[in-house]
């Protein structure tokens, strides 16, 4: 931390101030989340009279009904499949392209890299209607690929940049030594660059996984049948169907964000580093 020396001198007054201020903010962050989780245990009547407190009677059925139905699991699986395909394709396609930018000299390489970097400038929403028409004309509407391919394409700019910067910083000697040993580009990529690139693979993987898992606008436009819905679409539909039955919606929301929260607490170091370092390094 910056003020390493303050550890010895942080006065009692400062400590009190820090803990009070930090705790207030922490409570403001957590209240909506706790309200949601607790709300899922209440009856509709109690939700109206006592929206923020602990439930007087705990209705576990709100949760168990969802967990024993197949709707919740189907949406989770759909989201997982789409995210896994997105991560895999993003990693494969961007690592290969970035490798050529980092190590192979060819005519137009600078221009081509800038071409990809244009993708960093604007969001998928700008071209959402032509994108819809393209996916429709390719016959990919209402399929996983209709969501995956545009997601991968829009993530390429950032991913290629992260990979290229990383590959370029690998020590030059490695490259020369491999060459002298008679190793070609493709073998060099597979046996040397990729194994050394594990940290950046994790970064790019986390960024594209979180992006895909939480994505709403692309599935909303590309998927029609409920059996293919990802969870962000699913909770919107669920909320629409059950209208004012907020206790069910709250239980459903809690269960859908629970996997994210669990994974976040398990792998917090990697996730925070991936999401912020990714932003800084590009």
């Amino acid at each position, binding site marked *: 931390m910056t003020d390493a020396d303050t550890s010895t001198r942080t006065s009692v007054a400062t400590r009190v101030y820090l803990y009070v201020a930090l705790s207030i903010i922490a409570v403001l962050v957590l209240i909506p989340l706790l309200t949601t989780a607790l709300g899922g245990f209440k009856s509709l009547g109690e939700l109206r009279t006592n929206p923020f407190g602990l439930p007087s009677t705990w209705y576990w059925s709100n949760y168990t009904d969802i967990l024993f139905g197949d709707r919740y699991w189907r949406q989770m699986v759909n989201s997982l499949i789409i995210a896994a395909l997105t991560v895999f394709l993003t990693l494969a396609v*961007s690592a290969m392209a970035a490798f050529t930018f980092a190590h192979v000299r060819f005519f137009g390489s600078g221009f081509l890299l800038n071409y990809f970097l244009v*993708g960093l400038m604007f*969001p998928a*929403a700008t071209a959402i209607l032509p994108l819809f028409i393209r996916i429709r004309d390719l016959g990919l509407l209402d399929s996983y690929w209709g969501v995956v391919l545009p997601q991968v394409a829009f993530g390429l700019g950032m991913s290629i940049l992260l990979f290229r910067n990383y590959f370029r910083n690998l020590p030059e000697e490695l490259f020369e030594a491999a060459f002298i040993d008679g190793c070609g580009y493709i073998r060099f990529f597979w046996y040397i660059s990729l194994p050394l690139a594990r940290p950046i693979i994790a970064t790019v993987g986390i960024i594209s996984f979180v992006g895909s898992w939480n994505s709403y606008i692309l599935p909303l436009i590309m998927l029609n049948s409920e059996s293919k819905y990802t969870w962000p679409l699913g909770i919107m539909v669920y909320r629409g169907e059950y209208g004012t039955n907020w206790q069910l919606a709250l239980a459903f929301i809690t269960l859908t964000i629970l996997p994210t929260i669990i994974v976040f607490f398990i792998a917090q170091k990697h996730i925070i580093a991936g999401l912020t370092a990714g932003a800084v390094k590009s």
Partner: protein
Amino acid sequence: MTDLTVSTPLLPSAELVKAGRSGNPWARGRLPVLLLFLPPAILLFTLFVILPMGEAAWYSLYHWNGYGSPQQFIGLRNFQVLFNNAAFTQALWNNGLIILVSIVIQIPLAIWLAMMLAHRIAGVVVFRLIFFLPYILADVAAGLIWRFVYDGDRHLAIYAVLAVIVWKYFGFHMMLFIAGLQSIDKSVLEAAEIDGATGWQKFRHVTLPLLGSTVRLSIFFAVIGSLQLFDMIMPLTGGGPSNSTQTMVTFLYTYGVTRMQVGLGSAVGVVLFVICVTLAFGYKRIFMRND
């Protein structure tokens, strides 16, 4: 692919390396690697990013419902309709307001928290974790959660939206500043202290200037993120009541996508594109030249 390398093992090493980097395109399998590694990225990117953007510009000049091919050329009428549409100008205004709040409230809050978490006190890691938590939740989930928390007053809808944005994103900016603070040389702060600088003076004249590049980066992300806001608005307000919380993208969805007005929707896309690219280029050129 490695035939060539195997058949010429006696070349002096320097020449070998040179041969691979220039001249003969077959050296070390240079051509195969280009033919194998580049086309997937080029194809995907062109097909799903560049062409759709070009098509948006083209479609924006037509009145078209998305079936058959665009025939009814209407010039810039879609843009004229847009800028005379009260909901769209409200959306532009809201996007501006969101950018302003992100910069004026969110970033100082993030710096303040990052400074507090720089102290060596117990529990720092837990606080950092809690503050970052909203950022990893889906915007849709955050929007729905807050929809329930607010449920009621519809007059202050836009302020509700702004509050949720700060709640959701301050943790990300805070992490940027924590990283920025860690890269500051402690001896500079110690020197300032020896010169008798107070806490505020140290912050104002040493820490803040040294955080300059992080502040600029943070503003950049806030601006680009604010412009594409959609996921959170839909569950929270759906752009209502009476269009008071529309953003450019919710407008695009409501008027372009759901009504299949491809021309009008594409025109919104073009406006958004021009704003994004102008801001990104301009900002990088003016403020981030040296970063």
